[in-house]
Every structure is written in structure tokens, then in C-alpha cells.
């Protein structure tokens, strides 16, 4: 049993007896409910998407595929997309992992500073983050170029309007996903393995490469998977940075086919189905890799306390590197936003610009009619969807990783489906269903809650599965041997051990739900506005300066929320010294 390394738990005898009596155990009820919810949330939009893709008014058709892929330039589009997506994924992986490692596993300085700050790129709405980078690194007006010009001369210019620029901006914007995933993974890692390697004479780099990375492989695979799909789908960065020099990517096609009337759901669906196939393969690989044994199970019956590694003389070097990193990626864009939020219109810094500064934009923010309602609704929805998703996905991950239920892989695949469904299609699918449902959900905040839970289920699942794969089955076995019921084991043993991963997922969902627009905009009703709709309106009004002010306020609010969550989170689960 142990050599085949199956993490599944053997069913215990009392359970079988209970089943024979045909009385559903709480375990069965919970599993059925969670599987039902996952299936329902995923299948509704998927069904809608597939119908739209393969059927038109005249019945079955593959015309959507012809329209989506039958473009002479599709080869170039795909090549650009892959280059961009893989580049961004690699950059995010590198940045996110390094930061997480330094933060959790070493005694690097400035921890308090960079923990909150590494999440900031996630909070800033994509459009603001991208525009801030235009102001920083455009060859025409970029502030950074003005700074480096006297140093390097005219020859060297930072140009954000290139594929490298796109990779840079997207990679940094995505890096918090990796950071959160990897923080959870490193927290659950027994440092004695690294210490033994060090004792045996390995260098720090060797330890990182040969011990640390292999042990966190499930988290790394999950991160790569999510990020590649995300950057293949992302539109803001390619639209604002790529188009300017004619760099077209795959998703510009989705934009073109959905903006016409009637929206060409067939072609949009065909593109989404392409992504879906890619993502399904990715999930299958990740599970195959994750299943391949006990090698990732670092949380075992042996007691351990994760303890930070001493960096020694590298400590100041790392500290300086972190400061430099934050200056360029967080402080820079944030300063641009802060600066813009005091202006009447954006202009490069000058004496006149500083003279014209005022708090008008913030004042205007206070007078926005729905600002308070929107903030309240966003907080409710963010907390609600983050909590519901992580609770359900904790069970879902148990089914996928631990149980031996046939078809458990399907649960994982289903949970991943919403990642590839365009937001507008999700909105259409939900309004289609709930306009006809006898339950009066349409026009209430609940329809948004359902939309958010659906959209963020894939992230929740990745976070939960990754953590679950690190926890050894022997802990559950001991609990059950000692007479604990399944539910007791789950609640008292697994949940606390999973908590770093669940908390990371919870924070991620909370933060990104504040930005969700593409399905909210179709589904909201008067009185149920959310913050992202307000942002969209200010953006449409051309109030970029007010928008910057709103961005600054959002960053401050969420940094406070996230910090509180982490302070609370540090009190449960694995303790650090």
C-alpha cells in the first residue's frame, strides 16, 4: 500500500455498515452536495457555451471554428499569444516564487513591507496598472526613460509597447497568484529536509534546485497552469500595449467576434473550446504529477515547525534586491497613480503640474452617488464568494486527492472549466437560466454571488488541491484509527493543516472579486452596483484622474483587509517560530 504510494484512505468498516443500511452518512451528503454544486456551477455556462459553439439556428454547425481559426494570420496570432503567455507565466513564476521563498523560508529583512506590497499589483485594476506603465516606460512620454536618459544616453530606451513590455506588465500583474500559492506551499514544508542537505555539504542554490523546488512541484504546476491560461485570455495588456505596434494576439479575436451584433458566440465559443482543451490537458498532467507519490507530502505525522533559514551575509543583498524590485514594480506604478490622482489631467511632472495639484478627485469620489452602496456590495460579495468557494473547494480537493471515488478527476476538470469561459458568456448563461428559473434570483445580489463563485472556483480548487497534495494521508489515518469520524477528521485535522492554502485562496478571491466586471456589468441591477462598475463608469467618463484616486483608495482598503486576514491567519495552522 505504501509503496504504490496512493494517498487514498482505505474505507473503514463502520462506514460500509452504515451504507448498507441505506442511511446517507454526513460524509456522503456533504460529498454529494459539493460535487453537485461544482457540477452545477460549471455545467450551466459550459452547456451554454457548447450550444452556442456547435449549434446555430440551423442545427449542428462547425462554422464557429471556421470563423475563429480560419483567418490567414491565425498562425502569427497563436505564436504571439504563446510567446506572450509563456513569457508572462515564467516571469510571474520566477518573481512570485522568489518572493514567497524569501518571505516564508528566510530571515530576509522588510518582511512586513513586502508582504502587503507584493499583493498590490493584484489590487490595482488591470487597466490602471497598464496605463501607469505606459506613463512610466513609453518611449515617447515614459518617466523612467527621462530618468535613465542622462545615465545611458539616447541609445537605450525602455519600450513598453513590445512583446517584452507586455510580458513584463502581465507577468508582474500575475505574480501575486504565484506568490500566494507558493507561500502556502512553503509554509507547509518541513525545513529539516533542506537543513539535512545543507549539512551534507550542498550549496544554497543546490538545495533550492534539488530539494525545495521538487517538493513544491504541485504548487508550481498549478501556478503555471493558471497563469498560462490567464495570460492567453488576458485582453487589457495586449489591447493597450500590443496593438500600438500591431502585435495581435489570440484574444483580440474573441474581442472582435463578441463585439458585433448578434455577438458571434459560435466563434467566441470555438476559441474558448480551444483554450478548454489546453486547460484540461494541463489539469490532467498536474494531477498525474501530483499523484506520483508521497514525494510532496511534507506535512506528515512527524512533528516539525517551519523555521526561517538564516541568510547570513546574503541578508543585506537580498534586502537591497527586494527594495529595488518594489521600487520598480510596486512603488513606481503606485506613485504614478498617486501623482495622477492629484491632477486635473495627466501631464508629465513639472512645476506647473505640481502647482495645479488638489484633492478635487478625492472630493468627487465622496460625492459619487452609489459609492457607499457599491463598496458595501463589493465587500459582501468578496467575503461571501471567497468563503463559499474555499469551503466547498476544501471538500472538493479532498474528493480529488484523497478519495477513491471513480470519476473524481472529473470533479477537478469541472472545477477548472469556468477559467476558460469568457465573462460575457458566463453572464449571458446565468441571465438565461435565472430569467427562467422559478427562484427569484435575477435582479438581486445573489445572481452576482453565483457568478463570482463560478468564476473563482478554478482558483479555489487549485489552491486547495495544491495544499491537500502536501498533506500526508497518515495524519488522517491516525485520526480515524483513534476513532474520529470523517467529519471530525476533516474539521480537526485537515482544515487546520490546509489553512495556509485556503487562506491564500481566500485572499486571492477577495481581492480579485473587487475587480470583476465582465459578468457583473450584465447582471447587476439598479441598487446592486459593485465597485468594479463604478470604476468602469469613471473610466468611460474619461475621468482618469478620479479613477486613479479610486485606485489609490482601493489599494489602501484591500491592503488593510489583507493584512488583517493574514494576522488572523497566522494564529491558526502551522506555527512559525
Amino acid at each position, binding site marked *: 500500500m505504501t509503496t504504490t504510494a496512493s494517498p487514498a484512505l482505505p474505507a473503514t468498516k463502520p462506514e460500509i455498515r452504515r451504507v448498507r443500511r441505506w442511511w446517507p452518512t454526513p460524509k456522503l451528503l456533504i460529498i454529494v452536495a459539493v460535487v453537485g454544486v461544482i457540477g452545477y456551477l460549471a455545467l450551466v455556462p459550459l452547456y451554454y457555451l457548447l450550444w452556442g459553439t456547435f*449549434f446555430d439556428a440551423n442545427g449542428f454547425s462547425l462554422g464557429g471554428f471556421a470563423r475563429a481559426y480560419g483567418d490567414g494570420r491565425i498562425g502569427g496570432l497563436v505564436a504571439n499569444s504563446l510567446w506572450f503567455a509563456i513569457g508572462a507565466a515564467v516571469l510571474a513564476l520566477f518573481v512570485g516564487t522568489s518572493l514567497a521563498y524569501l518571505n516564508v523560508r528566510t530571515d530576509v529583512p522588510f518582511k512586513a513591507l513586502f508582504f502587503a506590497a507584493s499583493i498590490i499589483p493584484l489590487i490595482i485594476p488591470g487597466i490602471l496598472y497598464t496605463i501607469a506603465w505606459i506613463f512610466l516606460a513609453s518611449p515617447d512620454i515614459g518617466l523612467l526613460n527621462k530618468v535613465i536618459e542622462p545615465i545611458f544616453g539616447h541609445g537605450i530606451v525602455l519600450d513598453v509597447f513590445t512583446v517584452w513590455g507586455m510580458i513584463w506588465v502581465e507577468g508582474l500583474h500575475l505574480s501575486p497568484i504565484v506568490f500566494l500559492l507558493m507561500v502556502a506551499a512553503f509554509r507547509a514544508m518541513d525545513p529539516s529536509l533542506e537543513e539535512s542537505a545543507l549539512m551534507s555539504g550542498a550549496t544554497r542554490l543546490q538545495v533550492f534546485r534539488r530539494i525545495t523546488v521538487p517538493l513544491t512541484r504541485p504548487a508550481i504546476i498549478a501556478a503555471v497552469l493558471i497563469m498560462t491560461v490567464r495570460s492567453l485570455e488576458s485582453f487589457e495588456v495586449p489591447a493597450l500595449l500590443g496593438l500600438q505596434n500591431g502585435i495581435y494576439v489570440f484574444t483580440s479575436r474573441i474581442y472582435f467576434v463578441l463585439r458585433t451584433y448578434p455577438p458571434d458566440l459560435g466563434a467566441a465559443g470555438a476559441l474558448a473550446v480551444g483554450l478548454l482543451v489546453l486547460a484540461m490537458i494541463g489539469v490532467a498532467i498536474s494531477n498525474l504529477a501530483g499523484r506520483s507519490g508521497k514525494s510532496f507530502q511534507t506535512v506528515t505525522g512527524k512533528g516539525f515547525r517551519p523555521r526561517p533559514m538564516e541568510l547570513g551575509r546574503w541578508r543585506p543583498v537580498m534586502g537591497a534586491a527586494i527594495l529595488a524590485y518594489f521600487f520598480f514594480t510596486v512603488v513606481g506604478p503606485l506613485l504614478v497613480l498617486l501623482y495622477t490622482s492629484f491632477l486635473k489631467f495627466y501631464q508629465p511632472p513639472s512645476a506647473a503640474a505640481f502647482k495645479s495639484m488638489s484633492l478635487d478627485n478625492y472630493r468627487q469620489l465622496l460625492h459619487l452617488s452609489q459609492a457607499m452602496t457599491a463598496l458595501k456590495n463589493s465587500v459582501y460579495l468578496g467575503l461571501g464568494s471567497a468563503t463559499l468557494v474555499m469551503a466547498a473547494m476544501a471538500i472538493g480537493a479532498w474528493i480529488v486527492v484523497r478519495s477513491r471515488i471513480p470519476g473524481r478527476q472529473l470533479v477537478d476538470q469541472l472545477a477548472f472549466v469556468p477559467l476558460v469561459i469568457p465573462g460575457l458568456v458566463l453572464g449571458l448563461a446565468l441571465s438565461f437560466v435565472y430569467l427562467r428559473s422559478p427562484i427569484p434570483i435575477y435582479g438581486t445580489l445573489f445572481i452576482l454571488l453565483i457568478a463570482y463563485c463560478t468564476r473563482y472556483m478554478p482558483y479555489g480548487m487549485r489552491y486547495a488541491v495544491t495544499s491537500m497534495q502536501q498533506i500526508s494521508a497518515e495524519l488522517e489515518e491516525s485520526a480515524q484509527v483513534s476513532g474520529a469520524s470523517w467529519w471530525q477528521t476533516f474539521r480537526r485535522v485537515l482544515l487546520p493543516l490546509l489553512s495556509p492554502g485556503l487562506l491564500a485562496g481566500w485572499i486571492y478571491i477577495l481581492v480579485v472579486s473587487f475587480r470583476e466586471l465582465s459578468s457583473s456589468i*450584465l447582471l447587476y441591477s439598479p441598487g446592486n452596483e459593485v465597485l468594479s462598475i463604478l470604476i468602469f463608469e469613471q473610466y468611460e467618463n474619461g475621468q482618469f484622474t478620479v479613477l486613479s484616486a479610486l485606485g489609490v483608495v482601493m489599494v489602501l482598503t484591500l491592503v488593510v483587509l489583507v493584512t488583517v486576514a493574514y494576522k488572523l491567519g497566522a494564529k491558526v495552522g502551522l506555527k512559525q517560530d
Partner: protein
Amino acid sequence: MKTIGLWRRGRLACVLAAGIALTLVGGCGGSPTAGGPKAGGSDGPTAAEKVYAEIAGLSGKQRRDKLVELAEKEGKLDLYTSMTSDVADAVTGEFSDKFGIDVNVYRAGSETVLQRILQEQGANFRGNDVVETNANELFALNKEHFLAEYKGERRDLVPEAGRFEGWTATRFNLFAPSWNTKLVPAEQQPKTWEDLADPKWDGKLSMELADYDWYLTLYGYWKKQSKSDEEIDRLFAAMAQGAKIAKGHTVQGELLSAGQFSVVASNYSYIVERAKKKGAPVDYLPFVQPVIARPNGVGLMKTAQHPAAAMLFADWLLEEGQKLLVDEGLTPAIVEDNDPLKGVEIVPVDVKTLVEHGDEWSKRYEKVVSNGEQVKDK
């Protein structure tokens, strides 16, 4: 043996999940994307249409009084619009203050407004009484037979280019070239549309990704000026040559102020006007002519639950509301005196072509902006 019980349960769970999902969705029957049933087909006039017809004959004070009386009984108005929120706030605020009628506003981009109404009408859900949005979307709504006939003396004052079956223009968005006054010396700005093709703007001109309505109208205008297809294609190709393509007029305006572009080919004049008012170094005057105008309008829903309030809103928007739109920097549909556009040649967007052949033109424009290659297939 141990696994059998679990296996059964597993299969049960899967079957159950699939069952729930399929019954809930599949129970609705038919393709969800094949378009909803046509509302208001041959079943005769709806209740709302009867109200509209009853009022249509009235005019002046009598009409207003009657509408106010009925609308007060209805008590509220559900409006779906793509006006920007500052304009929408001003308009609905003033309307409710004047008549004491609560206005519920759903605000989104025009495509989203259209999608929302299509979805709701497809399910016989009466979400809105009146819609105010772009020409394309109103045209589409009328094609689906969702919009009722609106008659009245205010509509008759709207120029013919703004009176359509099922909807009436309330304002125009003007497409005009704009420039950064710091980067473009006085008198060097483009004076004709053809000027935009000048190689001196290579690397300095910005075009918008989705302005095919502007493209097809200018194309049609040049055709009427007896330019050949090749000539026109060459002009657009020369514009696109070295052009910086941007997505969204708002971003384009912002980046023009910031100096990222020197000239923008087809921004809305009101966006530039607002930036100018705040002191940004941008201008669009004197107009490059002809100015291309895209109507935005108002339509009454056949399924309105508050038809009198809807009609009152349309009347009001075409009367008192027009002044309000001017105050917000927009171009009203009805000009009674003091026309700010006096002497300016205006060409309305060819809405019919836009809706009927929009897809084709959208693809042509996509090719123009994507690499400046010549568009030959026609």
C-alpha cells in the same frame, strides 16, 4: 470489496450532479443562444402600446398634463442606458426632481444594454420601460420588434437623419480629428480628412480599434465625392501606415493629453472638449469637415410597465432635456436657435449599412488597422 461501496456512491454523486445541472438547464428547452421568441408579434398591441397610441394624438400642454397625471400614478421609471454616468446622473436627477418619479437606471456599454434587453425579452421579463443608447443597438432592438412607435411634435423637430422606425435621436456623437496643441504647432493641424494620410503623421497618429462606423461613413462620403475605391483604400492604408492603434476612445483621449500621440483620427469631440475644459493641451477646433455624426437615441418598449412615464421621459428628453445635454457638453438632436455647429457640414453615420453589413465593414476595418494592408475583396 472495500471499494465497491465507494464506487457506487461515486457514481451516484456524478449522476446526481449531472442530473441536477441538465434538468435545470435542459428543462428550458431549445438552444439558449438561438435567440428568443419575438415579442409583440401578431398578438395585437400591448397595453403599453395602447397608452402610447392614446397619447400620440395629443400635443402641447394637454399632452404633458395627461402624461404627468398618468406617470404619477405609475410612480417610477425603469431606464436602461449607455449614457456615461455623469450625464445619466444629471438627466435622471433633473427628471425625478421635476416630476417626482423615481428613476431606476441600469447603465452599461451599449452592447451590454442590448444583450440585457435581448435576454430579458427572450424570457418575457419586463425589465425596462425605455432605452437610451447608440444607433446600432437601437436598430437591432427595432429589428427584434421590441420597440413601440413613438409619435409627437418633439420627434417631428428632430432632423430627418435622426428619426428612425422605433426610435428617435436625442443626441449626436461627433467624430472629428483632434490633436495635442503642444506637439502640433498652430496651423499645422490636419484640416481635411485626407490630411491624416500625410506621411508626416507616421508614428504620431492614433486610430481606434473598433471605429468601423466612422470608417464606413467616411468611405461612403468619399465615394460620393467620386473618389475611386482604390483611392479611398490607399488613403486609409496611408493613415494606418505607422499609426498607433488604441482601444477605447477614453484611453485615446487620455494618451493624447499626455502626449503619447500627436493626432487622433476619430475621437468623439465631447471627450476632447472635456479634457480641453480642464486645461489639457488638446483641441479639435476648427472642425475638420465633414464632421461625422453618430446618433444616439431613445426608444419606448412595447412591454413597458410604466408606459406613461416612459413617454414622458422621451418627450422631456427631447424638450427640456436637450438643454441639459448641451450643458453636459453633448450635441443635441434638436437645435432651435444658436446652433453651435452652424455652417459645419455634418454627415450622419449610415446606420442602415452599419446594421445590415456591419460585420463585413468591421472585418475590412480590422484589416486596415491591423497592418495597413490594402483591402481588395469587395
